[in-house]
């Protein structure tokens, strides 16, 4: 895979040698409801690979949303790439988002765009010209096994194909951090393992990876460190680097 990174118009990322993600006593509540995340604190080192586990409703998706800046914490401090997101001007947030790739649980593919256009979306959003990203996107789609399906529309793709297309879109901009919400939730075990291998390969290329999953078999089989959420609290850090 040789996809180029962000557009030339994008300001250079701020130098960061510290953690990619740092949460300090983060709390999150929706409206006047009780907190769904309570005093959550953890760090993700550059190049690390973690699973985020927990029962349904434990707050996994909410925690991921805080990282990919779809939500703001009710309290506490969230740092991404060494920057306190609360202090960043709104105009800078898109550049931060471009450093993060997200595989959404429900894919969030755009049904009116072809697989190729869906995968190319982050590059298009970043201002790259089609001629500049054409070959990279095609190569990436071939890498995820969709080389023959690049002109297909999402409604005609199988669950596994949609999942791999969602991964292709998440990684096409060579993000420094990849978040995946239940990436194996809609596919069979074999396809789940194949997708996990894709993510591990990305991690070997230097991308920090955090995968939310309730597939205990997959998590245990991977041998990767685990962040475990229980009723909104981070209760276990198994095998996490010091």
């Amino acid at each position, binding site marked *: 895979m040789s996809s180029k990174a962000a557009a030339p118009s994008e300001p250079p990322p701020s130098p960061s040698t510290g953690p990619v993600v740092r949460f300090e006593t983060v709390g999150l509540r929706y409206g006047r409801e009780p907190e769904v995340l309570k005093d959550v604190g953890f760090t993700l080192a550059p190049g690390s690979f973690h699973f985020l586990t927990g029962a349904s409703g434990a707050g996994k998706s909410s925690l991921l949303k805080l990282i990919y800046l779809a939500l703001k914490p009710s309290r506490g401090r969230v740092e991404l790439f060494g920057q306190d997101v609360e202090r960043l001007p709104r105009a800078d947030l898109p550049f931060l988002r471009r450093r993060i790739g997200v595989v959404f649980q429900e894919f969030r593919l755009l049904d009116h765009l072809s697989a190729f256009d869906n995968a190319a*979306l982050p590059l298009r*959003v970043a201002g790259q010209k089609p*001629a500049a990203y054409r070959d990279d996107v095609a190569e990436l789609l071939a890498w995820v096994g969709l*080389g023959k399906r*690049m002109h297909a529309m999402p409604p005609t793709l199988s669950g596994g194909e949609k999942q791999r297309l969602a991964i292709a879109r998440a990684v096409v901009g060579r993000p420094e951090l990849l978040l995946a919400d239940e990436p194996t939730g809609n596919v069979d075990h074999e396809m789940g393992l194949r997708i996990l291998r894709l993510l591990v390969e990305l991690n070997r290329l230097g991308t920090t990876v955090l995968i939310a999953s309730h597939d205990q078999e997959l998590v245990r089989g991977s041998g990767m460190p685990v962040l475990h959420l229980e009723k909104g609290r981070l209760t276990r850090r198994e095998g996490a680097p010091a």
Partner: protein
Amino acid sequence: MSAPVPSPAGGRWKPAPLLPRDDARETALLFVIAVLCFLACLAAVTALASDRAAQGWSREIRGEATVQVRPALNETGSAAAARAAEALAGVPGVAEAAALEREKAEALLRPWLGDAVLDDLPVPHLVTVTLDPVTPASSQDLRAALRRAGIDGVVDDHGRWLKDVERSAALVRVAALALFALMAAAAGAVIAFATRAGMAARRDVVEVLHLTGAKDDFIAAVFQGRFARLAAEAGLYGALAAAAVAAILKLAGGGGGFGPALPMHWADLAAVSPCPLVAATVAAVAARMTTLRLLRGTP
């Protein structure tokens, strides 16, 4: 083997639009904006015609004056009027001055008073003065000439009517402009509403663009471009329809315009030509402002 890679260099390939077409919603919006543009264009053409009519009326009124002559004791009214006409004809800025014959004066009064009483009435002795259109004589000049000739007369320069006509013309112009502004504002409001509806209906697109790192300007440009194109198309239809209706009215009015009261020239139809551009601009601004305002509420 992989499918062929899209080739922008070798063909006409370009990425698909980020917003899908929503035919039912867009057809309705197209129709509403086209109707607004049609009414705005008709207002503009009517404003031009009424402005021309007002200018014509003003020119006619400004170009004439009437003098009512009061004869001396030993002089007939006709003789006094003839003498006044002679005196006034020599004033610089007067093109022509002629005493109005009694028959003509009676003809003017007959519709109001009838035949029976005219013989018993003292019909005023009038002199009609046609002024030079370039350097018209003032009413003071005319009074001075009458004084010099020893004629007792009252000069009416139609100033009272002129003020009324000019006030009416100004009112018509303001009304046409207000109507045009109202149409533009209504079109803007419709576009803003449609943008909100479009963003709600395409929340999936907005969220994915937002979360993949699109700047607010980028997302706004997507909606802005879509609605500007739609409004330009609607503006074109509205303008063509208005031009067609105006042309039919001109032909039906005997080629003079909407009738003798509103003279229209074929060149007035060109007033509808900026409509697509104006509509597109209003739509682009409305869509952009609406999108940016809505995005400001997101994290």
